[in-house]
């Protein structure tokens, strides 16, 4: 019957309905296989490429209706769902793609990515492993597996994955950046700096990598070069408030407290509720012995984030310098409540 239908399709296409009756008699002549599914599938791809995502979904759905085990059609429809941020539908489709083709590496990978984006890192990790075991060895599968391990604090394992991503793609700037970050977490600052620099040599427009490089240089107490790199980050991204904040801290490290305050204020101009920058202004004012100004800055930080433990601790330190022992102790105790351990040791003195 299906052959007949396809034949009918062709006949109608070529001759119009007038000859349908005659054509029907010719069924035995038509030997083309049934390809309704494939045709719909390919049309779906064209629609996807032309950003006709809803139409693409209809096409892949049609393909699946014609061919219930069409794993690629499930896969592609899943991918379109990803594009539409309909993650659970995407995951269901990837499930089906894998159900019909258990060695579908790309489907494992894509499902892993969808799970990763919906914070199911455990599921994602398992999918990435399956993708790799099924021959899917694109750089990104290692890269994103590395990201999960990084987030889990497994920096050595993450680093190994970022290295595999780099082996698969020597131009993988993100993998260099992230390996740099893993090295930084492992306190291998020289390696971190080298990785960040590689990432920049591949893609000189990544503001965040300049910023990361600056922070790694700060760890190496190379404040001057750190400031240069934060400046580069800001050149790439003029509203990069984090880089302003970090540059301020590097200036603070160089005892340029006035310059530091200017940078913290720049960060606040971009992000008016940036509690970190207010806190940091407070620390710089402390160094300038402007304890009252410092307290105002800490007050602001705390008004933005009432659980900002370090700001309480710092404010306590400022109050101590203003002989406000009671106020200092109240702040230290609050900071200790917020798990700032240092503050609890300060608060121990409050009983005397």
């Amino acid at each position, binding site marked *: 019957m299906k052959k007949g239908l396809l034949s009918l399709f*062709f006949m109608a296409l070529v*001759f119009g309905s007038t*000859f349908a009756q*005659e*054509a029907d*008699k*010719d069924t*035995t*002549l*038509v030997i*083309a*296989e049934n*390809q309704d599914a*494939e*045709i719909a599938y*390919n049309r779906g*791809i*064209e629609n*996807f490429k032309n950003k006709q995502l809803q139409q693409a979904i209809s096409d892949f759905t049609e393909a699946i209706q014609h061919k219930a085990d069409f794993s690629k059609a499930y*896969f*592609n429809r899943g*991918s*379109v769902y*990803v594009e539409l941020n309909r993650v659970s539908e995407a995951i269901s489709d990837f499930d089906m793609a894998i159900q019909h083709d258990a060695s579908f590496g*790309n489907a494992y990978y894509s499902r892993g990515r969808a799970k990763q984006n919906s914070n199911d890192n455990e599921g994602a990790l398992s999918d990435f492993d399956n993708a790799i075991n099924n021959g899917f060895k694109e750089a990104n599968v290692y*890269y*994103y597996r590395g*990201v999960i391990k*990084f*987030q889990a604090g497994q920096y050595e394992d993450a680093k190994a994955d970022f290295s595999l991503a780099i082996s698969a793609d020597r131009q993988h*700037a993100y993998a260099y*950046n*992230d390996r740099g*970050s893993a090295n930084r*977490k492992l306190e291998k600052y020289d390696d971190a700096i080298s990785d960040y620099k590689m*990432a920049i040599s591949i893609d000189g427009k*990544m503001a*965040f990598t300049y*910023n*990361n490089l600056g*922070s790694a240089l700060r760890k190496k107490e190379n404040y001057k070069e750190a400031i240069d790199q934060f400046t580069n980050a800001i050149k790439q991204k003029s509203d990069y408030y*984090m880089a302003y*904040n970090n540059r301020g*801290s590097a200036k603070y490290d160089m005892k340029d407290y006035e310059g530091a305050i200017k940078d913290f204020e720049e960060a606040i101009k971009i992000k008016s509720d940036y*509690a*970190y920058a207010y*806190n*940091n202004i*407070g*620390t710089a004012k*402390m160094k300038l012995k402007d304890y009252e100004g410092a307290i105002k800055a800490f007050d602001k930080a705390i008004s933005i984030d009432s659980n900002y433990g*370090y700001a309480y*601790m*710092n404010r306590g*330190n400022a109050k101590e310098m203003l*002989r406000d022992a009671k106020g200092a102790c109240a702040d230290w105790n609050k900071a200790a409540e917020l798990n700032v351990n*240092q503050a609890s040791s*300060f608060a121990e*003195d409050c009983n*005397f």
Partner: protein
Amino acid sequence: MKTLKNIAVFILTFLAINSFSQNVEFDKDNFKNDKDGFKKAMGNLKQGDEYYEMQSRGAYILALDFYLEANRFNPNSAKLNYKIGRCYEGSMQKSKCLEYFKKAQSLGTGEIDIKYYIARGHHLNLEFDEAMENYKAYKNVLSPKELQEKRKNIDKKIQECKNGKILVQNPVRVFIDNLGGTVNSIYPDYSPLISADESMMIFTSRRADTYGGGSDPGDQQYFEDIYVTYNIDGIWQTPKNMGKPLNTSNNDATVGLSPDGQQLFIFNGKEGGGNILMCELKGEEWSKPDDGTLKKYINTDYHESSASFSFDGKTMYFVSNRPDMSFGNHDIYYTKWDEEKERWGEPVNIGSTINTEYEEEGVLMHPDGRTIYFSSQGHNSMGGYDIFKSEMDDNGNWGTPINLGYPINTPDDDVFFVINASGKRGYYSSAQDGGNGSYDIYVITFLGPEKPLVQSNEDNLIASIANPISETVIEESVEIKTTRLTILKGTITDGFTGTPIGASIEIVDNEKNQVISVSSSNSSTGKYLVSLPSGKNYGIAVKATDYLFHSENFNIPAATNYQEIVKDIQLNKMKIGSSVILKNVFFDYAKATLRPESYPELDRLYKLMADFPKAKIKVTGHTDSRGSVTTNTRLSNDRAQAVVQYLIDKGIDKGRLQFEGMAAQKPIVPNAKTEDQHQQNRRVEFEIIE
């Protein structure tokens, strides 16, 4: 312009120095215009000199009152400036000495030790580099003999400056606060002692309500008395003179208090070169101080000046300058309470970790039982006495003393320091500017190491989170097996009338010699359509009743995509003269051998001959125009004969069959040029001849 300005500054400076350096002696000739003033100044000088000659701290203080008055009259006496410097240096506000020594030097004082005192002035003002420079310069002006005598002292001062540089660069974090006018008076207040819980303070003062109201003739100040103040809710109350029996009409000074505040050591300077006496608080009354339990071992003919109990009262630490077991000058000793003899036992020098060849003084055993505070001129003092602490390890050994640091310690004497049980607050006396007068009691609040300030920073450590990249990847398109199909369509009509014919269309796979399908054209329109999938050689025979069949051949290669071929076919009735080109008869190349693919077509011809048994046909062979006529004639003849022979072999009577080789005489396409045209011309036909 700038150069001119520099020159002007230089000249002004030069003039200033020049006028500054003019020494004006206290000579009546120098003050002819102010004889009264001169006379008064000379009186002050004389009185000051009397005290100055006494060379004691109290005397220096008294001398200053007169000297400063004289100096106001004549500020440019090198000699007077030097003396004022010496008075300051030898009394309380020591740092003030520097300006007077400097002035004395600029006025050209002849004092040989002026460089030493300028060094002292810098030293006391924490100007260590200048101090060292002047100490060294002083060594250079000394004769070898003097140098030999003084080298050790000067070198120690230089070392103190080195210590001071380090200590001042790393100050300890403290608040130092004057206890205020309630406790401190305009008179000297010093030697504070506190109970461990900081609820009581006993100190020494030389205020006007001293018992008996007498003054020390040495410095004209009231005799020392012992005072007590209590701490209520963190506020020290107005001190009270402790009265008899602690205070007498002479000097009575505090030297130590037990942690519980029940036992007090006081110093009595009159007895035995300076002895320690003890008294106890019984109820609300203090017992009469005596040295009953201190006799023999503690109080000697030497100077015993400071004492402190251990937390359990079983050990007493005290300071003495006795020569036994001494490391030099005053040392710290300890003694244990002898239960049997009910007195303190034989003292032991606390050891060389604590004691030095220099002076130790002001011992305080902390109630924690393992920390000792004391003052010393040795160790890494930055000048005079500095306060140190040392902790006892688990084996009972004292650790290396640690300088309590600047600003607690200064280049001046820092001594008689007490600390509370928590170690967070200490008390001492100091003659600082801004106090209530001379020595005042200060409280030191220890802030501990600098409390770290925590900055908050963040980075975008993970690139794909900082800047996520959409990477939707879809599987590529599949190959659609597009229908490779030839549609053959057209109209089948009567070749003569043009009337549509409902004919049967037989498709033969020539290769397999199989009929693939049989369909038919529409009888009313004559239209037909057949699908011919690519990859085959098709023979098509169109047949209709009473008509001669029509033969077509289509070779459709496998790669041929969809195409439509319109082929209108005209069928001829069975009648004499009608002919059919046998398009599906094939021969080997240049031969007359029939290929098997020809059989279906020949079988149709056979069937025709069988269906019409009376019919006679003539088979003609045709070649294209290429090649020789002879060859072509023979080949065309042989091929026509091969067809006839096939029919004969099938059983058709030979008499019904004729054949002839026509070579290229009757081309379908005359003057053929293309291969296709040549092919059309190469053929076998038959014609109904009867």
